[in-house]
């Protein structure tokens, strides 16, 4: 029997006061985010030992480090004990630290190359959150940054699972992080207006920011070190469509995820809806897949609470589902659905461990 990949630590940082405690307290109704979908100011030192060394990093890196520190602590590790050559980090992003990229390019355009800050450049590269995280948590195993739409979180867990199963690493921080950018938000608004000229508003939540991190391990490793598995990554599927066949593609992703999990789609007691595009189509696909006889699931919609934190969205969904399962608010399995602007889609089945949490 294959050793199961389990979630042993959870960390999340979202707009306003969005976090694990708030999620569990507010479930099943999440409050509408106050303000503009931005993460409230916080001191990294409060979450991460030695966090002051990272005071000049981009918002995307800062969010990631904070979420990772929370997840590492939740899993029973510390900054000193998590790292090593048998630990890995996989970060998923869409735009990452776009404000620093914008700042660097603005300096270059308006003041010339000699005024362009090297820090703004090095923090602009997509793997800046991962590189800084490797330093912060002393991770010397594989450290990757994957770029994609919202479902990039599922790609990250897929890669992490491969590395765990193949024995390359024993534990992995899987992270999604995104920082809000005025320029990027403006561009997406332009795109949406062009696509839906007659609709001032549509079902695409506004871009926002945040980060979520999960510590993933094989169940045997968690047991061996006396840790606690909080949820099981039972199955996942990734698909791509051209935008016209979203229902079919999502159905294929759901079937792949359920097939790997050995569960039926009707087993899911909660469904976490995408925070990106095609939300209605996805919901219809899910309802159709479950059939009329199945009891209705709890629909978990984070969009009002967190907006759409793009590359962080999928991990945030997974973190919420894992936290709810771990807290006993739902039994699981949960079905976590994600959609991206370029037509990528994913479905993940997150299940309970089947063991009482001690």
């Amino acid at each position, binding site marked *: 029997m294959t050793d199961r990949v389990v979630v042993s630590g959870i960390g999340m940082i979202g707009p306003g006061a969005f976090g694990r405690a708030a999620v569990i307290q507010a479930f099943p109704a999440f409050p509408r985010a106050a303000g503009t979908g931005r993460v409230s100011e916080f001191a990294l030192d409060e979450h991460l030992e030695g966090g002051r060394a990272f005071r000049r990093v981009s918002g995307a890196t800062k969010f990631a480090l904070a979420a990772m520190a929370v997840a590492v602590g939740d899993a029973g590790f510390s900054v000193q004990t998590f790292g090593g050559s048998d630990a890995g980090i996989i970060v998923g992003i869409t735009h990452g630290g776009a404000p620093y990229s914008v700042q660097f390019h603005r300096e270059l355009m308006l003041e010339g190359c000699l005024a362009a800050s090297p820090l703004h450049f090095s923090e602009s590269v997509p793997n800046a959150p991962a590189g800084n995280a490797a330093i912060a948590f002393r991770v010397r195993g594989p450290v990757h940054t994957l770029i994609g739409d919202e479902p990039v979180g599922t790609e990250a867990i897929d890669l992490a699972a491969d590395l765990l199963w193949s024995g390359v690493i024993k534990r992995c921080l899987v992270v999604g992080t995104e920082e809000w950018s005025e*320029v990027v938000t403006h561009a997406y608004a332009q795109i949406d207006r062009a696509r839906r000229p007659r609709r001032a508003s549509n079902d695409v939540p506004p871009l926002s920011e945040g980060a979520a991190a999960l510590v993933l391990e094989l169940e045997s490793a968690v047991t061996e070190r006396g840790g606690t598995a909080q949820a099981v990554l039972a199955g996942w599927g990734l698909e791509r469509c051209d935008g016209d066949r979203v229902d079919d593609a999502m159905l294929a992703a759901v079937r792949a995820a359920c097939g790997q999990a050995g569960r039926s789609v009707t087993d899911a007691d909660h469904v976490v809806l995408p925070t990106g595009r095609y939300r209605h189509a996805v919901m219809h696909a899910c309802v159709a897949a479950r059939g009329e006889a199945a009891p209705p699931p709890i629909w978990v919609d984070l969009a009002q609470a967190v907006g759409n934190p793009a590359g962080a969205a999928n991990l945030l969904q997974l973190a919420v589902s894992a936290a709810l399962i771990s807290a006993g608010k739902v039994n699981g399995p949960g079905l976590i659905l994600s959609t991206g602007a370029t037509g990528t889609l994913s479905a993940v089945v997150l299940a309970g461990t089947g063991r009482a949490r001690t």
Partner: protein
Amino acid sequence: MTRRVAITGIGIVTSHGIGKDVNWRKTLAGESSIRPITLFETPTYRTKRAGQVVDLPVAPWRRLRASRIDRASHLLHHAVAEALAESGVTGADWSPSRSVVALGTTLGGMASGERYHQSYVRKGPAHARPSLVLDHLAHAQPLHVMEEFSLGGTARVFSNACASGANAVGHGFRLIRAGQGDRALCGGYDPLCEFAFAGFHSLQALTTELCRPFDRNRSGLVIGEGAGILVLEAWDLARARGARILGEIVGYGETNDAFHMTRPEPEGKSAAAALRQAVQDARVAPEDVDYVNAHGTGTPFNDASETAALLAALGPRAREIPVSSSKSMIGHLLGGAGAVEGILTVLAIREGWLPPNVNYETPDPECGLRIVQTATRAERLRVALSNSFGFGGANAVLVFRAVGADA
């Protein structure tokens, strides 16, 4: 389940030109394709040269409007077309559930992002063309080529700075070897753009002179651009369909320095660990290694650290193994470097020639490796390593073997 992984197709675009023939010919000739930059204005930069691909033909896109897509996608198109044509893999062979597209890039279509932001600032937000933002995303280019070449499934885009391309190839290799996939189209790419050029300029990493990897007087790197693509297949499937096997990937190692965002760890400990992993993964001994295609950026930090890593991982044998870096001729291709240099390593094994490390004049006692100064016919060239190291502490090492060298 462990399967052998064959390389059946190669596609390469660098400042040497488009295609493996011209790239190999100019590489062996030790020709420099570092030239004045024409893609953007350079008067205020301390250095004005790069490995720019000149007269890049617009790729023959059938499904997308060529004028609306980024230079990155055009580079990638040329390399993918060459690799697929050589491999003979068609849409019929490409099962979306058993095939993978894995590509590495540092900044993807950043030139489009620059154009958008330029309009946004200079003309006002309403005048900026939003499609440029979508096209600048690093996952846009792989999706473009997948659509163009009817490659179903999903893409995986690695952005691990200068190790991205090697990581993507390593990923494809691992999936096939483990039996999780049958075929992979993998590699890396990065176009020359002012954003990246200015970034390395701001870090004072660019040389104002010649790029001289491992030379005592080395003073920095030269940026390049291009794409490298490899078609990987399960050995038995490649044989069964009668494909010509160009080489074999036999090992992959990956670690992180966990040291500094932009500087390598001076003693090269984690890079050495990646080298050891790769060699062990390939089940070869240091004595079996006949050539190392070094990361060799030509910066004082990198080359000293890479030397330390080679010595730590391979022992005294490291001083005997021929080593060269291609960056002195074509520049540093960032996310494309690992794949392009991997391809040059495969070609070196196939042809039995050691590619040169041009501009090397003065040995550096701190390095002390056996640097290949001019192209040399190899006495034995069956197993070779290709090193890639990058920002954020990324280290990746690929091990290639000659066809039939397992006998």
